């Protein structure tokens, strides 16, 4: 620690250069944070996917009859099946898109870990037009309990052709972390009863709760096989698969993120290595002087490493911080319905950033350190003396 003033003075020898380097490093680490942070979000979402739940929907589109839900419930290993649907529409202006999940009375039990209290679920059972709105959505649309909300949904018209659905906001509820843009929950009964008679008793998808997590994949396949030749063939995904973004898009986003982060690190490495090499070159006689005073080879090398490490670590910290800032601001610029995952700066992200910073510092100081070690003090000093 007592060497800190010496190292700091070395770093700030050319203040402009030091600040510019720091800013460049900071931005590369901002990118690091955004990309690796996004991977962290994916990982978190994946973690929250339960291994005992399954999504089932109609293979060829359309609605699935609730009767099938009862049949699935009778299968061994299946605990319960809830039905859910959705209304995609807008509030007043087509730009104001909203997405309302409509669930049946079994949803609270199948999705037991959601932070909605039984009392709150009961509210939308008691009032079929009731709506539970997450905090972020309530804020966005200026809603509070007791408000009335009308949603226009041209793709989900009622039996009489009316695309308007009127809801009563029952409560504002806590966020569900993997629903990054918030949610709205309604009662599917409201949707069901308003449809044409031929469409009633049907829903959009089933959420199946399995009693033994080790049997989940097996049961998923069984469901598909059972109904393959029925009038409504089903397509089933386990929740783990459904939450996997790579699976959904067919693209390995995580490795793209890593490659981008790596490109940024490469840029930083080049910049830092170059700057340090130049600085050591310019101050070669100073280092020789330190050796005459009695600083050991390793001591001098340690000073050089510290000189590289300070901007790297500082830049890493600032960069990740800036990435966190951008992540918080980003959602406001995205049109709703664009489910872009928000990067999260988890502890792992910081650790990875720190490791990369240390590695960059290490690699940057390698060549200069070698030069310093091989330095012939007498010759180095004779450049000056």
């Amino acid at each position, binding site marked *: 620690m007592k060497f800190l003033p010496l190292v700091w003075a070395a770093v700030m020898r050319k203040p*402009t*250069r030091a600040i*510019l*380097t720091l*800013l*460049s*490093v*900071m*931005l*590369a680490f*901002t*990118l690091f944070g*955004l*990309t690796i942070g996004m991977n962290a979000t994916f990982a978190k979402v994946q973690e929250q996917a339960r291994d005992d739940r399954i999504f089932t929907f109609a*293979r*060829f*589109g*359309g609605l699935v009859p609730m009767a099938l839900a009862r049949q699935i419930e009778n299968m061994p290993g299946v605990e319960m099946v809830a039905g859910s649907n959705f209304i995609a529409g807008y509030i007043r202006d087509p730009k104001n898109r909203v997405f309302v999940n409509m669930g049946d009375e079994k949803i609270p039990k199948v999705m037991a870990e959601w932070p909605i209290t039984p009392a709150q679920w009961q509210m939308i059972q008691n009032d079929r037009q009731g709506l539970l709105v997450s905090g972020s959505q309530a804020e966005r649309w200026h809603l509070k309990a007791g408000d009335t909300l009308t949603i226009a949904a*041209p*793709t989900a018209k009622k039996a009489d052709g009316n*695309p308007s659905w009127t809801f009563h906001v029952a409560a504002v509820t806590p966020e569900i972390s993997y629903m990054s843009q918030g949610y709205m929950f309604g009662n599917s009964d409201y949707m069901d009863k308003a449809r044409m008679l031929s469409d009633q008793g049907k829903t959009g998808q089933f959420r199946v709760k399995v009693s033994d997590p080790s049997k989940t994949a097996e049961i998923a396949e069984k469901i598909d096989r059972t109904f*393959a030749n029925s*009038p*409504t*063939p089903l*397509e089933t*995904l386990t929740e783990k*698969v459904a939450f996997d973004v*790579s*699976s*959904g*898009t*067919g*693209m390995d986003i995580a490795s*793209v993120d890593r490659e*981008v982060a790596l*490109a*940024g690190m*490469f*840029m*930083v490495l*080049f*910049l830092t290595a*170059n*700057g340090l*090499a*130049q600085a050591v070159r310019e101050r070669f006689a100073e280092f020789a002087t330190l050796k005459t005073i009695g600083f050991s080879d390793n001591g001098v090398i340690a000073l050089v490493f510290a000189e590289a490490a300070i901007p790297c670590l500082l830049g890493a910290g600032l960069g990740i911080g800036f990435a966190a800032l*951008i992540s918080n601001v980003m959602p406001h610029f*995205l*049109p709703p319905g*664009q489910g*872009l995952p928000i990067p999260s700066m988890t502890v792992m992200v910081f650790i990875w950033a720190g490791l990369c910073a240390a590695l960059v510092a290490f690699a940057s100081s390698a060549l200069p350190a070698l030069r310093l070690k091989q330095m012939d003090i007498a010759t180095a000093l004779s450049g000056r003396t």
Partner: protein
Amino acid sequence: MLRQIWIVSVLNFKSLTSRFWQSMVIVVGLAATIGVMLSMLSLSAGMQVAYANAGDPDRAIVVSKGVEQEGSSAITRAMAPMIASAPGIAKDKAGRPLADRGLNMGIPLLRLNGSKGFTTLRGLAEAGQGVRPEIKIVAGRMFQPGKREMIVGVGAQAMYQHMQIGDKVILPDGEWPIVGSFATGDLLEGQLLGDTETMLTSLHKTNYNSVLVRLASHDSLDTLKKAINTNTALSVDVMRHSDWYKRVADQQTFALALLGYVVGTVMAIGALFGCLNTMYSAVSTRGREIATLRALGYGAFPVAVSVILEAIALAVAGALIGGLIAWALYDGKQDLFGNMVFHLSVSATQFKLGVIWAIAVALLGGIFPSIRAARRPVVEALRAT
């Protein structure tokens, strides 16, 4: 003046070799930035191209009012002939209107890596090939109307399992063999085609999803629109096919393109600081040289311009290198995103973008150092070691 700029710039470049590694910082910085940005944009750019190719401006699509996706649209059996008989539609050799009743729905498939994906099952009616002359059978044969047969796009063949001629696709009423493969040069290549009427029966559906017409002439869209909009029995939207796909393309690619630009911006700013660093350093290193030139009578402005030119040259070189790497790695590669199969695109447009960004970075990163170079008192610079 120009001559002075030229001479100073040439001198500048001659001394570049002595500042090689520092100059490389700019090249590497821009190469990384533009390389990453173009790589990321290759996705959205490729998707845009696929959509643009699919949307023929001499075609119009008719869907139910207010829908934004073909799959949510419903054109009844009664509506279809009304649409087909409207004015403004081209006729085939037999005098029949080139208006095709289409079906559009998702079908789950297994991707090559085993994960569950889905693509579009599209139905063509008798006028199908007339309206879409771009469909070319490359192997096997076209499906026969009335038969339960399908043809598969070459893109889908590359991305999904069991898509070869002879493989069977399972629909609710049984297995449909693939009898041929086709190419179109657009996003249809990722899809499966079959006979609309046969598919409707198989899927227990009654409504078509769309009617696609070939316009009599590019300008007959207005005639068509007028006729259809005045028909009160029809509640539909008529759009030029190219406009339809443009809107879908913009929606689908917005988030991806935004991501590419955000990443590019962050890295560009990082590269900018690196550039500033390098140019300040360069100006400092060349201090005596510049001062000598000025003492000899060269103006401050040519000196300043030469500094900026150096930055621009380095930055553009870096951008081109990065772009070339992105091009080599990704251009033309077939990729999959959701249900879209398309070719990644790193084209002249992207290169131009990269070069413009490089120039912008170089300008911003060169202007302050250039001012410093021009302003530094000659006497002071000559004295400096």
